[in-house]
């Protein structure tokens, strides 16, 4: 499956050029990642056929090539004939229909059978929600229903436009789990848009498509994204201002109530035991403003994770300083105020202690 894009979208002062190919080696989740307001949504709407664009879109699927858009030849296949389903930021369930009828709206217009229906209801655990009105649903439930509705329309390509943006962390995790499982089971290629690094790390399996301002660039794995996020020169680092640390196999921490130990090369990070015990965790995401610095090893702090490192780079970000540390051979970013920076007299090569307030685990 491959999507060839050669698009030029212009709307008022806004202008986006995309010239790229997105290839799904096996049906999996691709992520479009970028800051808000740089036209991710425009790009998606053009792929869906909801927005007029100049250029070409070709869709290769099951050995066939379909031209969705070719503005030179005045060809523009309408949205409903493209077999692309889009899931929006807000669930956009039809308010005049209850949950079941919302799902049936998609089901009736798709080439789906009763097994598909049952499978979808079961795997998203929607049985109890079916008779409810859509305004009785919580945010997470509504997105689950929207996901089911999108999948029941049996699309050739599923597009998700920041579907988790309005959800709390717990609902986010839940919907992401479902999404991953369903895409595997239904062999569905997915294009997922987000500006949240954590979502990228949790979901992306193959190619990531990054796009900045008016250009689209691709990197081909979450690892490559991490490198991009860590290279301070790249425009994306401000977006993330997070570090990703690779960890060894998580271990039970002795004498530490409810914590597990995540080994780095020499030092150890402790985190609360996740609800679902999984040995599959391999990465930690740490936001730069969750890392504070100290010149001596603090012994009376409430913070559990204090790592020793060396300052290897300093960047001035208008009133803030972004300090890059080397911790057991990995990079950790810390964001501190100009006042602290001057008071501590931080210099490259200095030995320093990083206190970490919060981490996110991902697989």
């Amino acid at each position, binding site marked *: 499956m491959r999507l060839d894009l050669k698009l030029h979208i212009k709307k008022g002062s806004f202008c986006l050029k995309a010239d790229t190919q997105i290839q799904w080696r096996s049906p999996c989740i691709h992520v479009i990642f970028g800051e808000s307001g740089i036209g991710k949504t425009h790009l998606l709407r053009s792929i*869906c056929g909801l927005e007029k664009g100049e250029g070409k879109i070709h869709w290769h699927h099951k050995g066939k090539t379909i031209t969705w858009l070719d503005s030179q030849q005045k060809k523009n296949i*309408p949205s*409903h004939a493209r077999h*692309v389903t889009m899931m*929006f930021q807000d669930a956009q369930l039809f308010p*005049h229909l209850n949950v079941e009828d919302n799902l049936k709206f998609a089901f009736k*217009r*798709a080439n789906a059978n009763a097994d598909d229906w049952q499978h979808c209801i079961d795997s998203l655990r929607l049985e109890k929600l079916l008779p409810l009105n859509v305004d009785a649903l919580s945010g997470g439930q509504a997105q689950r229903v929207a996901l089911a509705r*999108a999948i029941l329309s049996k699309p050739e390509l599923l597009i998700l436009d920041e579907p988790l943006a309005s959800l709390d962390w717990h609902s986010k995790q839940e919907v992401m789990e479902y999404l991953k499982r369903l895409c595997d089971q239904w062999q569905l290629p997915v294009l997922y848009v987000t500006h949240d690094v954590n979502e990228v790390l949790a979901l992306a399996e193959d190619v990531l498509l990054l796009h900045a301002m008016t250009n689209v660039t691709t990197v081909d794995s979450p690892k490559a994204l991490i490198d991009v996020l860590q290279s301070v020169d790249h425009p994306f680092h401000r977006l993330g201002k997070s570090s990703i640390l690779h960890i060894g196999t998580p271990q039970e921490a002795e004498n530490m109530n409810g914590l597990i130990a995540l080994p780095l090369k020499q030092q150890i990070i402790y985190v609360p035991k996740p609800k679902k015990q999984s040995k599959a965790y391999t990465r930690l995401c740490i936001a730069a403003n969750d890392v504070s610095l100290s010149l001596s090893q603090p012994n009376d702090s409430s913070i559990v994770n204090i790592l020793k490192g060396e300052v290897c780079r300093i960047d001035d970000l208008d009133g803030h300083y972004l300090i890059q540390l080397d911790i057991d051979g990995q990079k950790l970013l810390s964001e501190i105020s100009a006042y602290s920076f001057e008071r501590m007299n931080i210099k490259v090569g200095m030995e320093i202690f990083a206190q970490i307030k919060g981490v996110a685990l991902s697989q």
Partner: protein
Amino acid sequence: MDALLLTLQLAFFSTLILLLLATPLAWFLAHHQFKGKFLVEALIALPLVLPPTVLGFYLLIALGPEGPGGWLANLWGEQTLAFSFTGLLIGSIIYSLPFVVQPLQNGFILIGKKPLEVAYTLNASFWDGFLNVILPLAKPAYISAATLGFAHTLGEFGVVLMIGGNIPNETQVISIAIFEQVESLQYEQAHLLSGILLTISFVMLAIIYASRKQSKGPLL
């Protein structure tokens, strides 16, 4: 009582035709921007402010033997559309147009394009989406438009007097019948018809406001 029946018939058919005409018009105005849109909107709103006699006067000329109405009437062997039920219907439609277009337009704007776009991505065509998503969502707007259109046609006087005259069974609507009865001092009859008109109008407006409460939807 003939006048009452005739009035109800007129209001019913005007409303029906108006809903059909106003739907595409309101949809277009709600979702398209074009040069001179304000002129179209002003034209549609004109009957709100124009004295009915002015509207009636122009209509009388347009519907008469010299106007397009007369040409149209020639097709089935008549001289003029003025002083006929058809002429009255055309007059009512123009007279009540803003009362139907405006609630529908506001309703469509409030619903927005999003639900239809969602329907598109779920493999529904425009008509499929319009009939199964937009129309049900616009129900409160349609109730409001239909009620206002109907009630406004009931209360028509000036336009009818100008283009319809006062022919019993053909063009004598209730408001004109009342006027005539008062002129000839038949107060008892006038009381009866006025009472009926008052009741109908009140009930219709009560329906509007009740449905507005239920649906929280767009109305006036």
